[in-house]
């Protein structure tokens, strides 16, 4: 059926256009990956695409760039910092948001609607509006430049979207679930842990990937609240500083960039299904 329906395009042109677009999209990343395994001399002498002239010559690749950036330039430490920031900054807001989304969806309380409309508005308030007052409070409390400080900040910033997405899912659960459980004498907390949470696993998976990628890839929040000191700075902050100091050392920059991209890419490709579901459930955050 679909075979006949493209009079503008012949079938061949269609394939050609799609493959060309896919190539344009993926070539820059391939260039990065290839360059990160080439020696400085090779990078200076020729472009990364020349390796495809001898596709089976594996002797021209080296791991030295990775050794240099991870050990000497401190990207290894930055990787650890990013993990130490991202894991709590993903778990804490999802925990808090789950409770809130459940209450917004299934409990009656004064101001429920009003608070939720505010929440929808907060989805798009630019973070820039909050940076200075929060930094001042953090400075007073000694939270600036510490991991707990940035965990809290990411929790606050992540909550609107996470609550919104979980609310959309939890409010769609059938209401009989709640009626029959309450009749059986289950408390609201039991209903939450025994019924709502297990049923919400797909939605929880979506928001986990969202929040994880958002925090892992964040530059602005880390720049403001953590700064560039090596013992706390995450990958994004360290690598953007490298651009200034190692601007033409492509083999090092590309290796550092790939270290920062590897884990999110694996997670993303593995859990793409949930990520797409989350987006389709109404994502408006930026």
């Amino acid at each position: 059926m679909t075979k006949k329906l493209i009079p503008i395009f012949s079938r061949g042109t269609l394939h050609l256009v799609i493959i060309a677009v896919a190539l344009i999209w993926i070539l820059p990343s391939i260039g990065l990956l290839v360059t990160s395994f080439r020696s400085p001399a090779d990078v200076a002498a020729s472009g990364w695409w020349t390796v495809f002239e001898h596709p089976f010559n594996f002797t021209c690749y080296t791991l030295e760039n990775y050794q240099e950036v991870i050990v000497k330039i401190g990207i290894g430490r930055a990787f650890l910092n990013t993990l130490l920031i991202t894991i709590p900054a993903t778990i804490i807001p999802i925990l808090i948001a789950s409770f809130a989304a459940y209450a917004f969806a299934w409990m009656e309380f004064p101001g429920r609607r009003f608070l939720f409309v505010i929440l929808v508005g907060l989805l798009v308030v630019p973070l820039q509006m909050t940076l200075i007052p929060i930094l001042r409070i953090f400075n007073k409390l000694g939270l600036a430049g510490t991991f707990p400080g940035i965990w809290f900040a990411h929790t606050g910033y992540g909550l609107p979207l996470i609550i919104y997405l979980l609310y959309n899912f939890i409010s769609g659960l059938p209401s009989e679930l709640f009626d029959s459980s309450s009749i059986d004498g289950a408390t609201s907390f039991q209903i939450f842990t025994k019924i709502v949470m297990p049923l919400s696993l797909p939605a929880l998976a979506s928001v986990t990937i969202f929040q994880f990628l958002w925090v892992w890839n964040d530059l602005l929040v880390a720049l403001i609240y953590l700064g560039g000191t090596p013992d706390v700075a995450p990958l994004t902050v360290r690598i953007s500083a490298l651009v200034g100091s190692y601007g033409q050392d492509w083999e090092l920059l590309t290796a550092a960039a790939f270290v920062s991209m590897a884990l999110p890419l694996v997670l993303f490709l593995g859990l793409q299904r949930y990520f797409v579901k989350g987006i389709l459930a109404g994502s408006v955050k930026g």
Partner: protein
Amino acid sequence: MRTNRITPWLYVGPAVFLLFFFLVYPSINSAYISFFNYNSEKFIGIKNYLYCFTNEIMLTSFRNNALWVIVFVPTTVFVGLIIAILVDRVKYESIVKSIIFMPMAISFVGAGIIWKFVYAYRPAMSAQAGILNAIRSFFQLEPLPWLIIRPWLNNFCLIMVGVWTVTGFCMVVLSASYKNIPRELLEAARIDGATEFKIFWKIILPLMKPTLVVVATTMTINVLKVFGIVYVMTNGNFDTDVIANRMYKEMFMFRNYGRASAIACILLVLIIPMIIINIKRFKEQEAIR
């Protein structure tokens, strides 16, 4: 569900507290200190705002943000839509979609380095490292310093990095919406002799309009806040600065909290129409429930 009066607050309490502490209170506070001097000690009226609308670099930043909106939003939405419709017709759809979607997992810092390398420039006599200049050399053209030629080429090159990272998002949302259009409808139009072009304009576009609006507003919000790409690739040099990067500079390089807050407030005002659209859409959804 029936509960006593206190229980709901135990559930929403922590979230509401954090939302007020990290978003509501600071926003109000920023609006307030935007009328004060650099360390918030002296009230100076609208001087910070006057600065924003008269300073040359600020005006350039506004122009650049406008350029981002004008080029970035239509390009991402249009390219995303076209890809969504085209890949629907081939068997390897999911692979192509994954490739286009993949940059969503990459940080703007990572994307900045990937593309700084694509745009890399070396003088004409040496071997080019960047693929764009290598292609130019292959056609006997002079290599170009893409990120330095102001004001159009370098801004355009930065915007393309944004397009590369975000088009996948548009494609995924629009693809889901496109697949919701009943196939019989398109078939019927074809049988009646409508051209593909006509079907696109008269059937597909009108049916997808609500989704297109959502995607376009989301893109507009994102692009007004664009920061990472510019920060990493040019740091706003060569007339490429944008509002969010100016705010960062006023805050961290010049320690002028008054001006920085004023810039943040202007950013918020630019985004407010989108907030209103958002709340309206939410209320409409609630009405359907």
